[in-house]
């Protein structure tokens, strides 16, 4: 159920968009995008970059980035080895650079897509002070930019195993939107290394309806299994895969 809650939370942020793209190694965002597409009656375009079938690009590795710069991608997903309270993300390493104590794979397209895709959803399931830090050790991509920097895009929300944050771009600050079932505001505060706003009333992150669960376990599981068979089996069992 915990994956399904995250999928539902993300899918709700994609409502009404024309084109959502999802990078590699992202089964939960991919499932959310496919759920949103299902709800749109197939009108939403979803590009799964690690899929052959759900990927229409025909102009090589540059096309995703060009497509984003043309304004044709409405939402994308990024993560971070570290993420800080200003939504800066670190995909490079911890403890010095270039000889980092812990090295991550690298920034990929984050330094670009974070600027150009209007609705970037940060997703990191592990919610711990190790990940959510006061200040990242290396800025792969900054959460906000100075006035005058061309930036039609940026962070929209942060979805974790514990909660959902909105990001207030004006104030460069996260605002707790909801806490996932089985967790508390206090737990979120304890596990988060950066400061954020906590409204007086913080609802629970909604669980998906029975209708949504049927869609997830049916057409979404089937479409996702092309790329993420292990995830589908773990989440929805062999039957779905």
């Amino acid at each position, binding site marked *: 159920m915990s994956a399904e809650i995250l999928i539902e939370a993300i899918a709700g942020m994609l409502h009404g968009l024309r084109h959502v793209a999802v990078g*590699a*190694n992202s089964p939960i965002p991919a499932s959310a995008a496919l759920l949103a597409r299902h709800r749109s009656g197939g009108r939403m375009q979803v590009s799964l970059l*690690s899929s*052959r079938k759900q990927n229409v*690009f*025909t*102009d*090589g*590795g*540059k*096309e995703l*980035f060009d497509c984003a*710069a043309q304004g044709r991608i409405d939402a994308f997903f990024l993560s971070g080895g570290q993420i800080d309270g200003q939504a800066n993300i670190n*995909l*490079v390493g911890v403890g010095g*650079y*270039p*000889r*980092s104590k812990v*090295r*991550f*794979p*690298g*920034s*990929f*397209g*984050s*330094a*670009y*897509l*974070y*600027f*150009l895709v209007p609705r970037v959803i940060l997703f990191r399931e592990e919610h711990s002070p190790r990940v959510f830090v006061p200040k990242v050790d*290396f*800025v*792969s*991509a*900054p959460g906000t*930019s*100075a*006035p*005058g*920097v*061309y*930036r039609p895009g940026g962070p929209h929300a942060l979805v974790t195993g514990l909660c959902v944050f909105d990001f207030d771009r004006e104030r460069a600050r996260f605002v707790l939107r909801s806490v996932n079932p089985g967790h508390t505001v206090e737990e979120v505060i304890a596990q988060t290394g950066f400061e954020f706003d906590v409204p007086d009333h913080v609802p629970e992150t909604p669980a998906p309806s029975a209708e949504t669960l049927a869609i997830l376990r049916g057409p979404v599981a089937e479409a996702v299994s092309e790329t993420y068979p292990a995830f589908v089996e773990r989440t929805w069992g062999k039957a779905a895969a």
Partner: protein
Amino acid sequence: MTDVLTSLDELAARVPDGALVAIPPDYSGCAMAAVRRVIARGARGLHLVGVPSGGLQADWLIGAGCVGTMEAAALTLGEFGLPPRYAAALKAGTIAMKDATCPVIHAGLQAAEKGIPFMPLRGVIGSDLAANRPDWKIIDNPFAAEGAEGGDPILLFPAIRPDVTLFHAPRADRNGNVWVGVRRELMLMAHASRSALVTVETVEDTDFLADPVLAAGTIPALYIDAIAEAQGGAWPVGLAGEYAADRAAIAAYVEAAQTQEGFDAWLKALETEAEAA
């Protein structure tokens, strides 16, 4: 004119020490068999560029001591995590890493393709990537509207012109034309490079350019310096549409390559087995 070579060793001999070598990521078309011959010939001081990222072949070359500099937007073995010899070399400081971001690598190659010294691109400003790349510049957009707030800063970076592009593709024809289909980054790499070396599953006795449907996915021989047949040449990372990755072999590699001794033993066993076959 494309030279059709009869051995991978001849191909490997065309990758000189110190060359700037462009390689595709594991999911595109990797000339793994040829890379083993580059290792066997003892190449040194290569400047590798992952277009836009690097994977197993970069780790093999790094483990074998062939690499001086690595430029990429990332290095990863996907589900198998960080490439182990790359991680070790970074820690030991035995390679220099030039961290980049995917679109800058693609656009840097496009600059070389167009023969221009630099390319502008949006984004990137304010990242520590830019802060650590003295070869990148930020200027005020010369086309900004009069009195634009903040000067409209924009990133410029130099062309990436590889000495050698090395990749694996499904098919070549008798004239040296290479079919890559939608893997257009391989075409961009060939256009941008001084020399393109290609291994293929098979050389067919036909002319792709005479067929308008095949021509659309073909790199003309004009850009290809040499090809060599290598059936299964992308093992173990696999070749889309042809054969899948050999996950067991990659897992075994990752386990072995946690230490330099383990890597050396793994490599020796692999080549001994190949010679025996």
